[in-house]
């Protein structure tokens, strides 16, 4: 059966890259549509692996370890990200070497956006060509470690924005403190999602994920209502605004505590 994603059949996606793939080329489709959190504007993300990246002559982005082609088909953008086996190996080794149990500040953003996307999506995709080669690639990656990295990295983000918020509040920069406190809260929601095993790194999907699990996950439900109750009640008075920032910090700490509890239980 020829499955489809976002109104485009898998065969049609393969047709877009037909002249670049051989029988042995692994190809998988990933992104928000595959994960059930996309929309009409979401693009389709296709990944393929080649022996030699230099054989790919047409591309819009050369990320050194990968190249990206952009296609438009049936009003849908299709991004094709092409990696070499060598660059995937290097990424897997890089993740293996991360010291997630001793995450100091030098650990911050050790993986870039494309690397995190690749690592997340390889576990959240539909394989459309050469399942065996795909399975060999997946075996190189440790999903639990990727999740731990995301958790520890976000914890550093929270601590940074928490301290920024306090500094701004103490110095009277109340507008800055409000904005940074909202970020602190948003990062704390991410931490909670990571503690539950999620690995989607995109901020833009944070609330869609919470909404998707709203009925089944009581923690997600509580966090969702806490966050929007906070956002809906921005006060006018400057003294009330100080309480508003304090409330964000309090909620953030509540979420962080919960996240650590869940992670301990998981371990």
């Amino acid at each position: 059966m020829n499955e489809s994603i976002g109104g485009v059949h898998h065969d049609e996606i393969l047709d877009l890259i037909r002249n670049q793939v051989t029988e042995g080329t692994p190809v998988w489709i990933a992104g928000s549509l595959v994960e059930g959190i996309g929309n009409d504007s979401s693009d389709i993300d296709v990944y393929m692996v080649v022996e030699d990246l230099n054989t790919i002559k047409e591309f819009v982005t050369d990320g050194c370890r990968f190249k990206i082609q952009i296609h438009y088909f049936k009003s849908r953008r299709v991004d094709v990200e092409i990696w070499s086996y060598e660059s995937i190996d290097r990424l897997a080794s890089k993740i293996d070497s991360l010291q997630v149990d001793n995450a100091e500040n030098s650990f911050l953003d050790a993986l870039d956006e494309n690397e995190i996307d690749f690592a997340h999506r390889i576990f959240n995709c539909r394989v459309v060509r050469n399942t065996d080669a795909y399975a060999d690639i997946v075996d190189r990656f440790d999903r639990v470690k990727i999740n731990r990295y995301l958790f520890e990295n976000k914890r550093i983000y929270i601590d940074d924005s928490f301290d920024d918020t306090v500094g701004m509040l103490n110095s009277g920069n109340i507008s800055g403190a409000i904005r940074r406190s909202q970020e602190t809260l948003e990062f704390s929601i991410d931490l909670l999602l990571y503690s539950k095993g999620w690995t989607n790194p995109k901020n833009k999907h944070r609330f869609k994920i919470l909404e998707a699990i709203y009925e089944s996950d009581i923690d997600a439900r509580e966090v969702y209502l806490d966050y929007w109750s906070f956002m809906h009640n921005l006060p006018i008075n400057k003294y009330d605004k100080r309480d508003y920032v304090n409330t964000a910090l309090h909620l953030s700490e509540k979420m962080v505590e919960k996240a650590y509890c869940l992670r301990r239980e998981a371990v």
Partner: protein
Amino acid sequence: MTMVALGDVLVKHHAVRRRVVNGDIFLIKLTDLCRLDEFSNSAWKLINGKWSIFEIANHLGPRFPSMAQHEVIEKTVLCLSEYLNLGYVLSPSDALDNKSEVYKALTVSKYLGSVMQVFYSQPGIWQKSISESFKEKLTVRFFRILYEMYESEISDKPIESETEFRNRIAGKTIFNIDDTVSDLKNKYDIKGWRHDVDTHSIVIQYRGTVYSGDVDNRL
């Protein structure tokens, strides 16, 4: 060193966060670090702006059964005095308010009201002509009837409290009012409702029956 009294109530300072790093527990206030032992960590977790030092000590007692009660009290006082001197805690009057429950109550009320608006027999009137306090009473009455139906019918999972029930509906309304309304309509067969300011009453039509009563009834 300033000592706390047993009747004192303390709140956590807004700048302090608790973190676990490589198995060690710290309180962090900007660049100040304070490493906690098991007792001081447990004491920190119990500071909630409501319990007195004595109540905190009473909760700590069972967690440290090898210590005599007077030792627990003494250690609690010393620990919280230290927190006070380090500026990790302060008295409620000196602290900024935590408004999370206030914000939540306002938001829940607003979104439950928006659901009720959809079911109102004469669209538009409810938002314009009712005082906030009467509107709140109508909301409580309306959702209590729904909760009573939910409570009598649920059998396969842990039952939610009335607050959890209301919060769940309000939260879902934030991102999908259409589904929320349709779900309530299907589950409870609500046909409509109206109110009467003069008689202080609410009339709800559901499941082939009509409920009519004073809004203060069973509040």
